[in-house]
């Protein structure tokens, strides 16, 4: 059977006659890799150019259309030692990238304006504003206006646009007071300049825009980087399926290009990549990734199989069905919609602060105006003082307080192997007091390993390993891996039963306990390892039974104990059998666990917890966990999780260890503390600056110093999020 991969789905045509493809490349991390890849690809005939992006770990290759098959590029890259995975950039990607570029452009313009106005302002502050030299002062003011007005008109647009959008919907956001503050400051300055007055606030206005844009840009950049990482991971994980064309030809095709109604082949030992109905073949299917149930179930023509399940025994031909047709998926999707609807709307810290802050500021400015009028000042100077109050209080440090911490905390998490999917996930993680784990694939490793190695003699073990190499069955593979076998025996496989060989005058068998006539031994082993799958080996002298189970992650016990010590309530909710869950729970020292739960049961349990006022972190990987992840306050998935599940999680962690979860919680707590600290710092700054402004003593110099001082303080404080310690 010839198998070629169909990549046409990923090829772009930027110009007629030129084809291009974007690839995610594994293992690129230095200059030498760039040279190797770019030169290596350039040597391929037909390639017009290749460009490595080291920051995003991607390569863009262009070639003359028709001269080269895209498959050749993948082959070339893997022969160079860099496995590559094609990906189709989502539309969302380019929107986010465009927004980031726009903010950076605005930031550049604002920085230009601020720098040049400072040049003039320093002169004004240091004496040019004295009354004797009014002509020079006016000249400087007009020059400032010339620089600042167009710069703010351009660079301030992100705020103006969002403010008008909010006002049109009769709502209020942080950008409304910003827009009002900046506009009033500029209007006041122009009016002051026209009247040859001493003070103008052009520099304050542009500085405000600059600092706020910096915060906005950091926020956007973090969001795009996390999305980039997520896209890369999706591309690396992107499964392919073997599609059978009408003429019987088998082609390896990316899942994204498979349509409902296609016929797909799943070989023994393959992960089934699609949802569908079995047309031909009989096999056993391991559904642990989908339901959490570790015991395999038998399938025959007409049975429904799900993406993510493992085909254990024989080849299956599967007719792909629409996602909605499956009963289980139907249920999951249905629950998911409901859970998302009911998800408690979390109000971000920054929004809460601005909701509190905005009315206070505007009331203060208004009462300052009225107060000075009552004291007897004419309306014009009273208005000037009121507007300076607005300028001084404009939420400059407030705009940086949260994004600066987020950026630092997100990169700290990234170093520990945790990737944030959502910006406010950080804040929600910090509030967690209860952690609910799924068992299969989350507390345990997604791959099965041998549990009862000590019961097996070394020579039997080696022989069984060599025999196991001949089989594609996942249990046999686990035995072969555990034995470290390298030279396979030329065995004969009976699909669904086992493998056998005549070796040194003896018949050896490896397969189901029934096939190896080892039912008695199997019963004994099953009593010891209730959560294991069994595979038997009939050796030269006796039969042994291997217990293959998904072992707990290597540091699971330590991490769970550590989290419990820190005061988190820990619970296990699993879809697996009670005996299997109980064994793992005892091993990890978790007292509260429930087994045999359906997705709806998990949500019900989470609802009880939430109604009791708990903030729940759900950690899960299975398709059956997706609704529960959406229903929890915040959620984390391992990288091995099902696609749908990962999309619901607020964060994803890498690797076999569970420690990143504890680390993420520490960092999130520290980050939240720093955010609150930062918000207080900007509040305290206002307590000091506002009375000065109300009394009418705020000069442009004081405004500039106060603004940059508080912004620097807040940014410096945010850097402390890099180091986080465990609690308690």
């Amino acid at each position, binding site marked *: 059977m010839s198998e070629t991969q169909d990549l046409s789905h990923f090829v772009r045509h930027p110009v007629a006659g030129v084809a291009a493809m974007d690839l995610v490349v594994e293992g690129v991390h*230095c*200059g030498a890799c*760039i*040279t190797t890849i*770019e*030169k290596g690809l350039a*040597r391929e005939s037909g390639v017009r150019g290749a460009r*490595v*992006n*080291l*920051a*995003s770990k991607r390569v863009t290759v262009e070639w003359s259309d028709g001269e080269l098959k895209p498959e050749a590029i993948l082959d070339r890259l893997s022969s160079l030692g860099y496995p590559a995975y094609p990906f189709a950039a989502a539309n969302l990607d380019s929107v986010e990238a465009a927004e980031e*570029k726009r903010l*950076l*452009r605005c930031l*550049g*313009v604002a920085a*230009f304006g601020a*720098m*040049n106005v400072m*040049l*003039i302002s320093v002169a004004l502050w240091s004496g040019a504003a004295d009354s004797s*030299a009014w002509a*020079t002062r006016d*000249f*400087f003011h007009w*020059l400032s206006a010339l*620089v600042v007005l167009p710069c703010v008109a351009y660079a301030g647009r992100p705020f103006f646009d969002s403010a008008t959008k909010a006002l049109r919907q009769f709502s209020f956001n942080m950008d409304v007071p910003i827009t009002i503050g900046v506009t009033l400051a500029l209007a006041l300055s122009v009016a002051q300049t026209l009247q040859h007055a001493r003070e103008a606030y052009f520099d304050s206005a542009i500085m405000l825009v600059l600092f706020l844009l910096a915060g906005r840009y950091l926020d956007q950049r973090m969001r795009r980087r996390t999305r980039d990482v997520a896209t890369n991971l999706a591309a690396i994980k992107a499964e392919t399926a073997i599609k059978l064309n009408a003429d019987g030809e088998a082609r390896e095709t990316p899942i994204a290009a498979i349509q409902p109604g296609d016929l797909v082949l799943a070989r023994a030992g393959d992960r089934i990549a699609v949802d569908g109905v079995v047309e031909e073949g009989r096999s056993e299917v391991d559904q642990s990734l989908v339901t959490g149930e570790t015991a395999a179930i038998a399938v025959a023509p007409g049975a429904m199989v799900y993406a993510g399940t493992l085909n254990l025994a024989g080849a299956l031909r599967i007719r792909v069905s629409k996602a909605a047709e499956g009963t289980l998926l139907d249920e999951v999707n249905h629950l998911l919609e409901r859970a998302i609807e009911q998800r408690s709307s979390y109000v971000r810290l920054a929004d809460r602060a601005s909701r509190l802050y905005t009315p206070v500021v505007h009331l203060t400015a208004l009462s300052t105006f009225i107060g000075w009028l009552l004291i007897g000042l004419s309306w014009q100077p009273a208005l000037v003082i009121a507007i300076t109050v607005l300028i001084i209080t404009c939420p400059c440090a407030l705009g940086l307080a949260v994004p600066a911490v987020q950026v630092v905390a997100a990169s700290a998490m990234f170093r520990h192997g945790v990737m944030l999917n959502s910006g406010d996930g950080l804040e929600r993680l910090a509030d967690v007091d209860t952690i609910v784990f799924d068992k299969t694939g989350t507390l345990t490793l997604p791959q099965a390993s041998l549990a009862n190695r000590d019961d097996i003699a070394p020579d039997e073990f080696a022989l069984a390993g060599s025999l196991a190499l001949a089989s594609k069955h996942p249990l046999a593979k686990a035995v072969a891996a555990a034995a470290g076998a390298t030279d396979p025996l030329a065995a004969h496989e009976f699909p669904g039963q086992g493998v056998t060989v005549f070796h040194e005058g003896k018949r050896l068998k490896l397969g189901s306990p029934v096939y190896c006539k080892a039912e008695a031994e199997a019963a004994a082993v099953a009593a010891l390892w209730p959560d294991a799958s069994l595979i038997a080996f009939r050796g030269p002298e006796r039969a042994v039974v291997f217990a293959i189970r998904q072992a707990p992650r290597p540091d699971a016990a330590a991490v769970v104990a550590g989290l419990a010590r820190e005061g988190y309530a820990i619970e296990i909710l699993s879809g697996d059998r009670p005996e299997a869950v109980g064994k793992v729970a005892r091993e990890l020292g978790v007292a509260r666990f429930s087994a045999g739960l359906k997705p709806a049961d998990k949500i019900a349990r989470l609802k009880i917890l939430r109604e009791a006022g708990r903030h729940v972190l759900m950690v899960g990987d299975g398709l059956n966990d997706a609704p529960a992840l959406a229903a929890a306050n915040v959620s984390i998935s391992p990288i091995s999780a099902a696609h749908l599940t990962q999309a619901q999680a607020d964060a994803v962690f890498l690797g076999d260890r569970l420690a990143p979860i504890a680390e993420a919680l520490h960092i999130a707590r520290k980050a939240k503390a720093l955010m609150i600290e930062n918000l207080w710092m900007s509040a305290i700054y206002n307590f000091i600056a506002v009375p000065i402004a109300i009394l009418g003593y705020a000069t442009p110099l004081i405004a500039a110093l106060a603004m940059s001082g508080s912004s620097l303080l807040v940014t410096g404080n945010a850097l402390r999020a890099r180091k986080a310690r465990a609690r308690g």
Partner: protein
Amino acid sequence: MNVLVYLVPMAIGLGAIGLIAFLWAMKTGQFEDLDGAAWRAISDDDLPDDENKK
């Protein structure tokens, strides 16, 4: 102080050149791969070697 009339606009003009350079750099994607650029500076693929002769 009349010297200011052309000195200050000149300063702003120089700043504007910097801004234009920045906008040009953005447009041509100079900031797309900040990590890679650091390595490309020290790569020697502009030197002729036996594999890369044209």
